[in-house]
């Protein structure tokens, strides 16, 4: 083994030795696999239109030029946030399936402040709404965290329940406080509460883009720094990778579980605010449906292998195919078919870990081959 390592060191370093590259390649392979699978679905449902529809998906946001890209960025921002939320908790060894509930809670808090708190100065209104969203999300995330830390309740179960409580609770609150009776949805927020477009609409004319994507980017960087550069991140990762060793090292594991869920909740809650404080004609519907952005966040996190930068890229990608999906309606595909294809890609995204394993195995085998070849040469 040692000699093999030395051999490699002497020659140029293979790209397969860099873990980040392997991660990236495996995610790309997962995406390709998902796209192929999606194509098969398209082909079964409508052979003649399959090719056109599929190229629409591939082109995604780019099909409509600049405005499409703007749309993609707008769609990507909230799911990057929920992806970060799931990925962050995952690094601590927690499976935050409750991103949906946190997202909904955050969204309502943002809308509530946006509609009701007119007394705020116009510059402050939007910021207050964002903070309200983070607080609500954090509150929602803290419940499973506390239950896990102090009563050892499995966070998956408690956060699924929090999803339902969030959905029905928010529906009730919308009806009571910010209800638009005619459209069965939340009232529009005051324009001062909407996120600033900050000139981005000049760059991407004809789209709903606003500073949301920048907020998401900043969050990605912040989470990256927390996880990889700080003492707090070190503790979180230690707890995630080995709870017993963390306890042995004197790390307060309970505190870290709660904090991790609170931060995860904050990120999801902020994602909710980004979606609805947008002046894009998007309102909170009073429906018995759990916010899909939360579940999309799980896929985004898986596809991005829970690394903040990976999550940013995979969030953009999901945004991209979502735009492509809606463009596919031109080819007479039912919206359900589009959802199915996205789902297929997302499912295959979860396979990226499998691909990682395959790449590593393949690399090792080829290494062995070259080694034996070398040895043969040496013998000659």
């Amino acid at each position: 083994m040692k000699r093999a390592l030395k051999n490699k060191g002497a020659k140029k370093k293979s790209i397969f030795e860099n873990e980040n590259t392997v991660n990236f390649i495996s995610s790309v392979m997962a995406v390709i696999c998902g796209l192929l699978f999606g194509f098969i679905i398209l082909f079964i449902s409508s052979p003649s239109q399959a090719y056109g529809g599929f190229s629409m998906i591939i082109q995604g946001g780019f099909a409509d030029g600049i405005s499409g890209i703007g749309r993609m960025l707008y769609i990507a921002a909230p799911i990057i946030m929920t992806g970060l939320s799931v990925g962050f908790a995952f690094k601590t060894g927690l499976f935050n399936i409750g991103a949906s509930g946190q997202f909904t809670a955050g969204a309502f808090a943002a809308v509530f402040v946006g509609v009701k708190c007119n007394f705020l100065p116009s510059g402050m209104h939007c910021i207050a709404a964002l903070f309200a969203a983070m607080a609500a999300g954090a509150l929602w995330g803290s419940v499973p965290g506390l239950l896990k830390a102090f009563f050892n309740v499995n966070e998956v179960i408690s956060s699924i329940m929090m999803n339902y409580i969030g959905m029905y609770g928010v529906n009730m609150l919308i009806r009571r406080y910010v209800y638009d009776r005619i459209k069965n949805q939340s009232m529009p927020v005051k324009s001062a509460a909407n996120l600033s477009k900050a000139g981005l609409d000049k760059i991407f004319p004809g789209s709903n883009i606003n500073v949301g994507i920048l907020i998401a980017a900043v969050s990605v960087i912040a989470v990256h720094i927390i996880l990889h550069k700080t003492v707090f991140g070190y503790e979180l990762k230690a707890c995630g990778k080995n709870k017993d060793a963390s306890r042995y090292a004197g790390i307060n594991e309970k505190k870290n579980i709660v904090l991790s869920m609170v931060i995860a909740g904050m990120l999801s809650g902020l994602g909710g605010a980004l979606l609805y404080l947008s002046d894009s004609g998007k309102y909170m519907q009073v429906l018995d449906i759990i916010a899909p952005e939360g579940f999309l966040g799980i896929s985004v996190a898986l596809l991005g292998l829970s690394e903040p930068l990976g999550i940013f890229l995979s969030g953009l990608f999901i945004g991209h195919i979502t735009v492509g999906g809606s463009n596919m309606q031109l080819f007479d595909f039912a919206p359900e078919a589009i959802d199915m294809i996205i789902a297929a890609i997302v499912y295959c995204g979860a396979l990226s870990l499998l691909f990682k394993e395959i790449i590593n195995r393949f690399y090792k085998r080829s290494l062995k081959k070259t080694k034996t070849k070398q040895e043969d040469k040496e013998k000659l």
Partner: protein
Amino acid sequence: MDYIIEMNHITKQFGDFKANDDITLKVKKGEIHALLGENGAGKSTLMSVLFGLYRPEQGEIKINGKKVDINNPNDANKLGIGMVHQHFKLVHNFTVLESIILGREDTSLFGILKTDKARKKILDLSQKYNFKIDLDAYISDITVGMQQRVEILKMLYCDNDILIFDEPTAVLTPQEIEQLIKVMKQLADEGKSIIFITHKLNEIKAAADRCSVLRKGKYIGTIDVKTTTKEVMSEMMVGRKVSFTVKKKDIKPGASILEVKNLILKSKHSGKNILNDVSFQVREGEIVCIAGIDGNGQSELIYSITGLRQPDSGQVFLNGRDITKESIRKKSDSGMAHIPEDRHKHGLVLDFNLQENLILKTYYSKRFQKNGFLKFDAINEYADELIKNFDIRSGKGAYSIVRGMSGGNQQKAVIARELDRNPEVIIAVQPVRGLDVGAVEYIHHRLIEQRDSEKAVLLVSFELDEVMDISDRIIVMYEGEIVGNFKPGDITVEELGLYMSGAKRSGGNGENKV
């Protein structure tokens, strides 16, 4: 042919790693043949090949001079090969009888179990070897020594002629070991051939006729045990000279550093006392060994001292200060080092790299962080320093993922981390478990170095050799109580064994301080 087993030029590879590299083993009929080697030398792999668990890449196996193909353990059984594994393969809620006949049950019509014949045969066998075993006792209720006898009976019940014992003495008291060796000799006299895997030279001397030595997957040689000294055997095993004697400075123990007073810990399930009124002291400049058979409360005692579990009553003092209720962090900061029993569970975060593991107990200190941000340069520098000082070997130095490192180097990493914090008291639980002779020597040397610089060392060990060699004082634990407190010079290994098995106890609860 007078060889019953011939394994010729066996090579077994796992990926790039050759676990067995051209090994030849020949066993005569009716002999006890020891297979000697350090951990990872390839002993178990070779036996797994013989037992049909692995298929070798190269080589052939002959039984009674005939070439055979062993594809699975059933083939091996048909050829009369039986094995007592290091970790027994018994069903805990079966009776002794049921365990022995498992897989070879006699049944009458409609599959109803018939045990009369089997019972008679097993009773005859156990009488012949003086096993004194209750066939209707449940496995979970009998001692480890008895469980081993069940495994032996199982092999004899199947009329196996070739018996493999994989490190059979690891879990036994000296008395049980003596009996086991007696039984092995009796079996060999009856014409059965025995392969005895071990890395303990004393046992080879006592039991074996010939001995084959493996080192790092290679065959080193076969020797006649009677005419070869232990020193030669160990040199063959390790590849260099090993000193058996431990050099210690002559110092008088000073003030008490760690004191445990009337510690009681109750089991969460049964409410039984796992620790029953345990009291002792460890003074500066002495190594106190807690001897005893695994599972007599040693782990729980250490958990209670280090804070991984809260005792139900009693106190722990460090330098005269009551630290019973303090957090683990506080204890560690006030000078308690803990080399844990299970380095994979507690000692290391296996998926962290080496440098991250080396700062696991100090990452929050000023040296490694500023305003909550880790100082990676300082960490890396520190890790390189420890790697050099403690000779920790790994593929990528400070950046190696610890999971991929060898057990010995993992343990060195734990020891480096704990000792470099300059602790007052070092608590080490089985620090050399599963390590090869070289690493054992090194770690003992390090612990004694701490003692010589007037630190207090508390060592939990199940290995009597270790206990006798390096301790200044021995405390024996049996069923959660301290049943003896001796200086190593005042007691023989045999006597210690009697205390460990509960057959003997000295009055008071560790009161007779030396």
